[in-house]
């Protein structure tokens, strides 16, 4: 309750801040102080609300729905803190918190730069107001009580000493198929509990817990960094709006520049960490699956990076005395679109429209949230583009645009166009599910090969061009070294790497060219003004990244193998021996040790598999043998301990209902009668048996058999039946007393089964090599580092 009150007051403060700042911009000078006060009040309240949510999580207050749904007593402290952003409500809270903090920094930044503050902050407060509405009690509020809507809580999470109280018996439910019991928590149960003096905290004693795939270090750092990037992308939008409000396009370029660079750096880092997480933990086999969640954060990043390039041109032309400068409209559009696409990305991933398209499932949050997100996107899009339309005539009149073909201006503009093309492709592909369509990864991959080739070419080429214009002879002279070095290095890569595809050759060529040109310039600069290094470092990073992508994806080789225990198998020159498994993490997971021999070196790596209590699913974690030049990547597929039955790997499992008939290996089998267990014995936990009477017809003979499940003490076993004449083995696998559905394993006694009838432990894996995948990570890190060198340079220039 208190949390919702705080957030509601924060929303009111945010709106007051927006209005006061706007009035201050319209000339009411005394409104400025109120605007500042209101914004700071809002930010403080948001910080308090976030602290409250964290406190509720850390103290296990399961009376709150969010705390119950995403955390549990078993989680280690670090992970428990990260459950803050495990669900929708919390990740909106995180976005809000980070945006508010960014706003505090922005307010201080803007207050030192002329009359900037009222304009920038009024737009910024509009953004915080929208996010505050999102977390308000109307929509995705994290402070909702657990009884506000009926929810089924597993009996395991209820205080065991209270389960037998007569007052709660009306709220007990059980699920027939799984046998689990639930308590239906709703307001009337809460009323009963309260009137009996039982606090909710003592009634619900544990939470549902966190998806095990999120229970790791990456969950702690990836979302905060990504959301920091999202939050910071609000700032260029506000600067663009502020410029249009004043109809003065000179200052915003310099003022927004360090922000845009820092945003691109942090967002890029966040995206990469997500990719690394997928690669290292989730076992998707790669770092990028063109999944909508990944894509939707990449789109605004690409647009932002495009903006960096054209802003540079505008800044340069302004330095020459232009008031508006080149590409003024382009830059405004890009700054607007970057933030609009961040909100659009939220819409795509949070509104339920991608329901069937992604491996992440998005539960539909309801029509209201859907509509609100549409309004959120629409408001900022219309506000941005509408204001631009209002200023369009003025801008067209004052914008200068003459470019020489061989100028750095035009090549930078082309770079921005290419980046926007890439963003468009991803946007189209990712949005397709809204219209009931979807695209393959091939769509993205094929579209991006030509784009990457052009990026490589521009990356290197634009740096050889001078501002304004370059004489062709001069260009030739200047590029002599880099072009010849590129040709030699590329030829070496093509020959050594055995590249045969023309497009890949071209891609290697242009990427190498970019790398060499940037290295050459960086080496020259490094002795001079190191602050100028930023762009070159970033470009070296992106070239290394592209080379890493080429080698690790196109030259990755993959093979599925069955590793029999203590038998050595070879894949790509790696001798692998499965030596057995051991339990790890307090017996909750199993590590499967594989001894890998390469040449005279020996390593042990251990992929992990376990059944998660959270969703009863099999979870797999890959193991990676990381070497300097390549990764050897093993994803576990399955494990068969060979002791249960040799049929586990042979024969067929067929599920039959009473009266069903089926065929196996020429035999006609019908399920004629259900052997019912003694219900009273069964419910009291005594020994019993149940099963299926089957009639088997084969070769003119008819057999009647009883496939049984026997429970003796704590053991359950399935009695195998062997019909020698019919060459048939029958064994029950599972039977449900309610539906009488039986799952039966049929196999042949002789033939291919006998050869493998000895118990064997088999680990199935998928092994792959990823050459130079390290370049992907180091490339991005270097690129981000470059962004921050530039930030420090551009920050100095932003003070007027």
């Amino acid at each position: 309750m208190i949390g919702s009150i705080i957030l509601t007051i924060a929303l009111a403060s945010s709106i007051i801040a927006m209005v006061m700042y706007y009035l201050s911009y319209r000339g009411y000078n005394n409104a400025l102080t109120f605007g500042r006060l209101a914004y700071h009040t809002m930010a403080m309240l948001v910080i308090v609300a976030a602290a409250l949510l964290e406190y509720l999580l850390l103290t296990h207050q399961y009376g709150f729905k969010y705390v119950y749904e995403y955390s549990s007593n078993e989680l280690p402290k670090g992970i428990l803190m990260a459950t803050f952003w495990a669900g929708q409500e919390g990740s909106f809270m995180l976005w809000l918190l980070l945006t508010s903090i960014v706003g505090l920094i922005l307010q201080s930044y803007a207050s030192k730069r002329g009359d900037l503050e009222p304009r920038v902050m009024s737009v910024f407060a509009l953004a915080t107001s929208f996010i505050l509405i999102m977390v308000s009690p109307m929509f995705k509020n994290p402070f909702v009580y657990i009884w506000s809507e009926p929810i089924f809580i597993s009996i395991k999470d209820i205080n065991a000493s209270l389960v037998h109280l007569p007052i709660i018996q009306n709220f007990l439910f059980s699920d027939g198929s799984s046998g689990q019991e639930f308590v239906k928590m709703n307001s009337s149960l809460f009323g009963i509990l309260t009137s009996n003096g039982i606090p909710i905290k003592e009634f619900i004693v544990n939470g549902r817990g966190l998806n095990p795939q999120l229970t790791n270090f990456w969950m702690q750092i990836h979302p905060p960094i990504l959301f920091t990037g999202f939050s910071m992308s609000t700032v260029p939008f506000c600067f663009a709006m502020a410029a249009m409000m004043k109809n003065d396009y000179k200052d915003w370029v310099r003022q927004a520049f360090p922000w845009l660079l820092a945003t691109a750096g942090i967002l890029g880092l966040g995206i990469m960490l997500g990719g690394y997480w997928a690669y290292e933990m989730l076992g998707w086999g790669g770092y990028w699956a063109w999944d909508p969640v990944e894509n939707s954060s990449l789109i605004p990043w690409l647009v932002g990076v495009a903006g960096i390039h054209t802003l540079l041109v505008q800044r340069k032309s302004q330095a020459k005395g232009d008031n508006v400068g080149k590409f003024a409209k382009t830059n405004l559009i890009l700054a607007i679109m970057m933030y609009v696409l961040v909100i659009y990305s939220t819409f795509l991933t949070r509104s339920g429209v991608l329901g069937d398209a992604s491996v992440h499932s998005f539960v539909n949050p309801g029509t209201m949230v859907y509509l609100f997100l549409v309004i959120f996107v629409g408001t900022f899009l219309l506000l941005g583009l509408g204001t631009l339309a209002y200023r369009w005539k003025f801008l067209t009149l004052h914008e200068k645009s003459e470019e020489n073909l061989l100028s750095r201006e035009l090549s930078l503009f082309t770079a921005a166009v290419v980046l926007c093309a890439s963003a468009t492709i991803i946007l189209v592909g990712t949005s397709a599910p809204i219209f009931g369509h979807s695209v393959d990864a091939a769509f993205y991959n094929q579209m991006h090969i030509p784009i990457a080739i052009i990026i490589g070419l521009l990356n290197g080429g634009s740096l050889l061009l001078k501002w304004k214009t370059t004489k062709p002879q001069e260009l030739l002279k200047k590029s002599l070294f880099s072009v010849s070095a590129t040709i030699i290095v590329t030829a070496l890569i093509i020959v050594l790497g055995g590249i045969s595809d023309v497009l890949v050759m071209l891609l290697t060529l242009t990427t190498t060219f970019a790398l060499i040109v940037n290295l050459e310039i960086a080496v020259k600069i490094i002795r001079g003004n190191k602050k100028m290094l930023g762009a070159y470092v970033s470009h070296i990073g992106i070239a290394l990244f592209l080379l890493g992508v080429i080698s690790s994806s196109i030259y990755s080789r993959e093979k599925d193998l069955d590793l029999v225990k203590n038998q050595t198998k070879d894949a790509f020159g790696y001798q692998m021996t499965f030596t057995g498994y051991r339990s790890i993490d307090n017996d909750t997971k199993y590590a499967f040790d594989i001894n890998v021999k390469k040449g005279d070196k020996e390593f042990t790596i251990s992929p992990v598999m376990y059944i998660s209590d959270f969703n009863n699913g099999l979870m797999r974690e890959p193991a990676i043998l990381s070497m300097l030049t390549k990764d050897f990547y093993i994803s576990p597929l399955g494990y068969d301990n060979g002791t249960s039955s040799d049929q586990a790997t042979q024969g067929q499992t067929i599920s039959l209902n009473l009266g069903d008939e089926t065929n196996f290996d020429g035999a006609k089998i019908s399920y004629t009668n259900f052997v019912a267990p003694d219900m009273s014995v069964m419910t009291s936990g005594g020994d019993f048996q149940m099963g299926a009477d089957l009639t088997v017809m084969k070769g003119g003979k008819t057999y009647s058999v009883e496939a049984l499940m026997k429970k003796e003490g704590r053991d359950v076993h399935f009695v195998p039946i062997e019909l020698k004449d019919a060459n048939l083995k029958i064994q029950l696998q599972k039977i449900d007393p309610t539906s009488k559905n039986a799952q039966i394993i049929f196999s042949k006694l002789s033939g291919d089964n006998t050869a493998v009838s000895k118990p064997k432990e088999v680990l199935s894996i998928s092994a792959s090599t990823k050459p130079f995948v390290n370049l992907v990570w180091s490339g991005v890190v270097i690129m981000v580092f470059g962004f921050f060198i530039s930030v420090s340079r551009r920050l100095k220039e932003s003070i007027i």
Partner: protein
Amino acid sequence: MKNKYIFGAFIIVVFLGFMVYLFTQSNIKYESNFAKVMNENKIVRATGTWVKDKNYVIDRNNQTFTFYITDSNGNQMKVIYDGMMPNNFESAKSVVVTGQYKDGYFHASSILTKCPSKYEGQNTPDVKTSNL
């Protein structure tokens, strides 16, 4: 000046053309009506739910998994998938199979199971039986 715009427009048209072409090439439609799935001779993504009451067969020798799915209108369809029963299949709320309907069954090359995941926890469990 004029040339620049013509050149720019040309590039954009080529780019869009290429994109539309590839889009139609790699585009797979979602279909939740199985009557339409059965008449379609293209690869589609059919969304439905697993018919748990009907037989399913796991054939380990041929590495296939045969089961039935149904759409919301109650149309049932036999699916043969090249592979084993995927993770979480039994607890999945709905399944998305990608493939083509031919010779009386849907030949699936991939199965996507909709399970609780990264961004949202599962909702209420399917409680089938009534009050105890």
